[in-house]
């Protein structure tokens, strides 16, 4: 104000500066505008009533069935797992007085095997078993922990959601119709209705630290790596190219895609690799080393 009262011209410039530099600027990140001409052309395509062409499903070009196997190992120091922020129902939600631990990066100390890596076939031309198996997959919870960190099931296959705790839980599978109360000692059967794409999160809202993932596939060609990092997908269509998608909860790729440097398998940053299995072959892709840089926090 001192500047204003002594020199009115400076004052005017100051006011002009303030007005010109403030106000009308938008603070939002710029977004691209639509291409109006291209949209007009597209509208013609959308309005056409011609019958739909052939579906996107891959055409079968081989015969027979083969098995894919491999093993994920973690090449780095996983560090000590952090305790979870469990603060309710502590008489049940702790393992003999020990705090529950974060399971997002489970590495077997002796074999370095990386558990809970999901591998599934992206598109398949044919399926060996036409109907989903009716033996239920058990998805249980105990001591305020989902016993399976990753639930893999085929669309239409019953999933027996159980609760072996003396307290009640609810099981909420994101992106699906399922969020149900599971009273103590009881269970309910859920049949997945559609594919998940990449695995979707499963939580208990009563105990928010409880976390797992679910992946449902129409063809059932999905595997979750075991404690030693190994996985097996049997009965894949043989004699034709297959593309597989790989996911890990903490992978740094888009949507949890696990990208590896494996040019011989044409492994992409989107976490996909390609193979071809001959009929009755057990294709072993060997040990797949996951560098520490592929895993985020």
């Amino acid at each position: 104000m001192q500047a204003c009262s002594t020199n009115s011209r400076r004052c005017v410039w100051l006011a002009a500066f303030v007005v010109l530099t403030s106000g009308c600027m938008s603070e939002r990140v710029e977004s691209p505008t639509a291409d109006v001409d291209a949209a007009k052309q597209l509208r013609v395509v959308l309005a056409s009533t011609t019958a739909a062409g052939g579906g996107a499903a891959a055409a079968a070009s081989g015969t027979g069935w083969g098995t894919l196997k491999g093993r994920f190992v973690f090449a780095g120091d996983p560090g000590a797992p952090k305790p979870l922020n469990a603060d309710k129902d502590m008489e049940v939600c702790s393992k003999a007085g020990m705090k529950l631990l974060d399971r997002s990066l489970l590495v077997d100390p002796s074999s370095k095997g990386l558990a809970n890596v999901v591998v599934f076939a992206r598109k398949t031309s044919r399926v060996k078993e036409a109907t989903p198996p009716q033996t239920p997959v058990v998805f249980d919870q105990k001591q305020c922990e989902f016993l399976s960190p990753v639930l893999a099931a085929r669309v239409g296959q019953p999933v027996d959601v159980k609760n072996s705790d003396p307290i009640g839980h609810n099981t909420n599978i994101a992106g699906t119709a399922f969020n149900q109360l599971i009273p103590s000692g009881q269970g309910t059967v859920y049949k997945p209705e559609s594919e998940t794409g990449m695995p979707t999160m499963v939580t208990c809202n009563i105990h928010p630290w409880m976390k797992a993932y679910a992946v449902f596939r129409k063809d059932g060609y999905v595997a979750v790596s075991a404690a030693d990092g190994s996985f097996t997908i049997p009965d894949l269509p043989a004699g034709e190219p297959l593309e597989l998608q790989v996911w890990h909860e903490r992978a740094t790729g888009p949507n949890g895609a696990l990208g590896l440097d494996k040019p011989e398998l044409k492994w992409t940053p989107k976490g996909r690799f390609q193979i071809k299995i001959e009929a009755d072959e057990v294709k072993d892709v060997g040990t797949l080393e996951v560098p520490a840089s592929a895993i985020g926090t």
Partner: protein
Amino acid sequence: MIKARHNIVLLSATAWLLLVAVGCGPTPSASFRPNMVEATKQRLTVDQERQVATVLLAMFGTPDDPVALPETGLDESKLRLAAGPVRSDIVGRKNGLYREHCAHCHGVTGDALGPTAAFLNPYPRDYRPGVFKFKSTERADKPTHADLVRVLHNGIAGTSMPSFALLPEIQVDALAEYVKYLTIRGETELALMRAFFELDDDAGGKLPETREFLVYETLTPAAEKWRAAADAEIQVPEMPSDIDLVASIAKGKELFYGDKANCVKCHGVTGLGDGQANDYDDWNKAIVEVEKEVKSGAAKAREASTAGMSPDELAEHRAQLAWLEKFHGVLDGDALAPRTIPPRNLRHGIYRGGRRPLDLYYRIHAGINGAPMPAAKGTVPPEDIWHIVNYVRSLPYELDGELGADRPMVARDRF
């Protein structure tokens, strides 16, 4: 003294004149804002963002000139009544209803980023994920048209959503249709943005612009659910008319605190909503998750040393930094600060989804879509749900003594 005052007058006059002269330019016509959070999360390139905007323009038009393909099942004449700037036509019929009544909170795009949104608690609904809470259908189903009309009619008690009961029925109907339009548009946009990840590597990062992909694979799944909602209403067995209310309330109380229904875990031993209270609803959780991703990514990028990097790695590192910076800006401008969702305080007698016993039955039976509230169906039989409804309805009036035949409730007991 006089000179100083003269200066202040001069200063104000100059500032005012400058503001008028410079202004903010002509008001641009209203446009739909892309879902920048999802676009950035999916790491779309500028070209990919533009492709989505172009496809959406072709499929849905603009806020002033909406288009609805027959597959959406939407009535374009109703949309035109609700869309566009506020105006009256030649016979005096009001147009531009959405912008008159809704856009200031729900935003022109239906993204709940209208100018007043940040000041409201709870935040207004973001229509784009296609999730609605208060409805007569099963958890994952869409609301029926009547459900949307009911919300517009009654407003949502305990929130900033007012009642539009004074509007003529035809206008309420048009607004409900327009909400569906914005929702189907938003869901289509999400599907398109997510489809880039599912593309084969030889697709060149471009979505196929065929009717097959755009209509049958992308639009129809979203639109079909709206059509199916009419037949998806929950079948509610009537509460027995000769029910012993005192006994039913006692049974409901037992269930409320018991392990089977487990209401107590979130709504609290007092029923004040003070149980498990640090969870988020689906809309806020989505923002919490990306915030976490951005934060951990930034921490990792800071730690990384560029010294030993090959040119490829260095380029990747720079791209990652640029992405993080963009995401930071997007979260600032296209998302509100996430808030936890407190379980409802059941002592108030304020029920957001409606206060009819039937409304409470729907909430308990199907849970609340988008919120942590789980469904009781399947594990809690219908008659028990009615008992819980009766207990919950008694909670605002529950006194230290038990209500009963010997102690009928009188009006002053309520306060």
